[in-house]
């Protein structure tokens, strides 16, 4: 399957060995979208690298921006204004919803729900993209976060617009859930398919919704809070079987929790300037830092080594999709060939994220 195949969500090549319809072995080949991001980082100043992070997981650029600037700020031991923290939480959670909408609806398309659910998902997602467009002038590659804050403050009337989106989105998530959960074909194709046990998930360092679907209650926003996530009330949805169905259910529920967080963040949004002036050329003191954040697909980590100059000496990007994809061959052994598409879709990987 692949490298060009509609269900591989990008240029990914799966070498499947079959006995009739049954999968005997699966070998995953990645790297078709490898752009050498880590090497590029060694030749860009800290600020110049922000737009490159947009192109890692291009379905959730905002959270990549966030993970990167948080790592640099941790390296510099910089404090950011309260307003910036709240704005970052709001846009990161909106991005999580937009990303899960794509994840879920492309997954159902892989299972044969051709185009219709995808259009519903993309229609709702467009509301969020429109808002981001107004916020920073880009629909997909935002380049919005800055070291020390955000590029622009929320425009006039944005608060009301975001509340409008929250109000609109709740019933639409219910609609989507009804559409899929009451569909006999969808249920039959996902329940018990691609079971990922808790032990295996941890051993493979699977993170994010895929880990939680296997019954591990672990979310960095709760367990190692960054920004101001510790001030908000929200639940961490988990699954019990770790099958494709649970991975879908966890994502649906996570969108609802994100709406809760956004509402609370809007209520508590402080006034003031959202950016501290740090300057364009940043020279952090020599040292290393590792910072991980809860991106929509799992834990995104940046390991940055500084030698005191204006460019990173080394930057490692620990992407969630990379580790999540590694487990695929384990999940599909013994399954039918059509289930490969189902399991891959349920893991919700982005090839830009695996290959970097």
């Amino acid at each position, binding site marked *: 399957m692949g490298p060009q195949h509609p269900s591989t969500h990008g240029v990914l090549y799966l070498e499947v060995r079959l006995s009739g319809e049954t999968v005997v072995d699966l070998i995953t080949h*990645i*790297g078709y979208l*490898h752009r*050498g991001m*880590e*090497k590029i980082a060694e030749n860009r100043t800290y600020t110049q690298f922000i737009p490159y992070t947009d192109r890692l997981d291009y379905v959730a650029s905002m959270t990549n921006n966030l993970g990167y600037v948080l790592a640099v700020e941790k390296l510099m031991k910089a404090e950011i204004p309260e307003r910036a923290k709240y704005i970052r939480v709001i846009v990161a959670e909106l991005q999580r919803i937009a990303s899960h909408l794509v994840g879920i609806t492309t997954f159902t398309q892989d299972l044969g729900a051709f185009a219709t659910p995808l259009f519903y998902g993309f229609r709702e997602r467009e509301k969020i993209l429109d808002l981001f467009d107004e916020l920073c002038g880009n629909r997909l590659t935002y380049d919005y976060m800055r070291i020390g804050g955000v590029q622009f403050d929320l425009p006039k009337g944005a608060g009301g617009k975001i509340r409008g989106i929250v109000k609109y989105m709740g019933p639409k998530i219910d609609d989507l859930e009804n559409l899929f959960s009451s569909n006999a074909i969808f249920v039959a194709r996902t329940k018990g398919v691609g079971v990922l046990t808790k032990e*295996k998930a*941890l*051993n*493979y*360092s699977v993170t994010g919704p895929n880990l939680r679907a296997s019954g*591990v209650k*672990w979310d960095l926003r709760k*367990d*190692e*809070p*960054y920004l101001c996530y510790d001030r908000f009330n929200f639940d961490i949805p988990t699954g019990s079987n770790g099958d494709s169905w649970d991975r879908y259910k966890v994502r649906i529920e996570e969108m609802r929790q994100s709406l809760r967080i956004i509402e609370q963040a809007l209520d508590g949004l402080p006034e003031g300037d959202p950016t501290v002036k740090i300057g364009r050329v940043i020279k952090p003191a020599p040292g*290393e830092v*590792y*910072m*991980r954040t809860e991106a929509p697909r799992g*834990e995104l*980590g940046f*390991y940055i*080594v500084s030698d005191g100059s204006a460019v990173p*000496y*080394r930057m*490692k990007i*620990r992407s969630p999709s*990379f*580790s999540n994809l*590694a*487990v695929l061959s384990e999940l599909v052994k013994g399954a039918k060939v059509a289930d490969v598409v189902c399991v891959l879709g349920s893991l919700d990987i982005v090839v830009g994220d695996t*290959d*970097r």
Partner: protein
Amino acid sequence: MPADTGRQVDISKEALLETARRLKNEGFNDLHCITAVDRKDGIELVYIFYAMDKHACTILRTRLTLDDLSAESLAHIWRSADWLEREVYDLFGVKFLNHPDLKRILNPDDWTIHPLRKT
């Protein structure tokens, strides 16, 4: 629980396997990340472990000399090491001994260079 910045431990490469096993017994169930840094006079391997129950982080670092770029693989203890070690091999040329399938992962198989090396 606030984010743990982690304790950093420098070890010799001979002690790597034993230290890793001990960490596993101590509850460090997540080998989160493996990477390397080219320090010009040698390659530094970096292993990031997390113990979820204890909210603890340990970062192991070991220095390899340029004349012997090899280290024991941890892939039979943590399966996550499989791909992560392949990536370090691909980008830095570090050979992991007893790895189940050590080959390039991001770059083409017929490449002869390791692109993240600085020398």
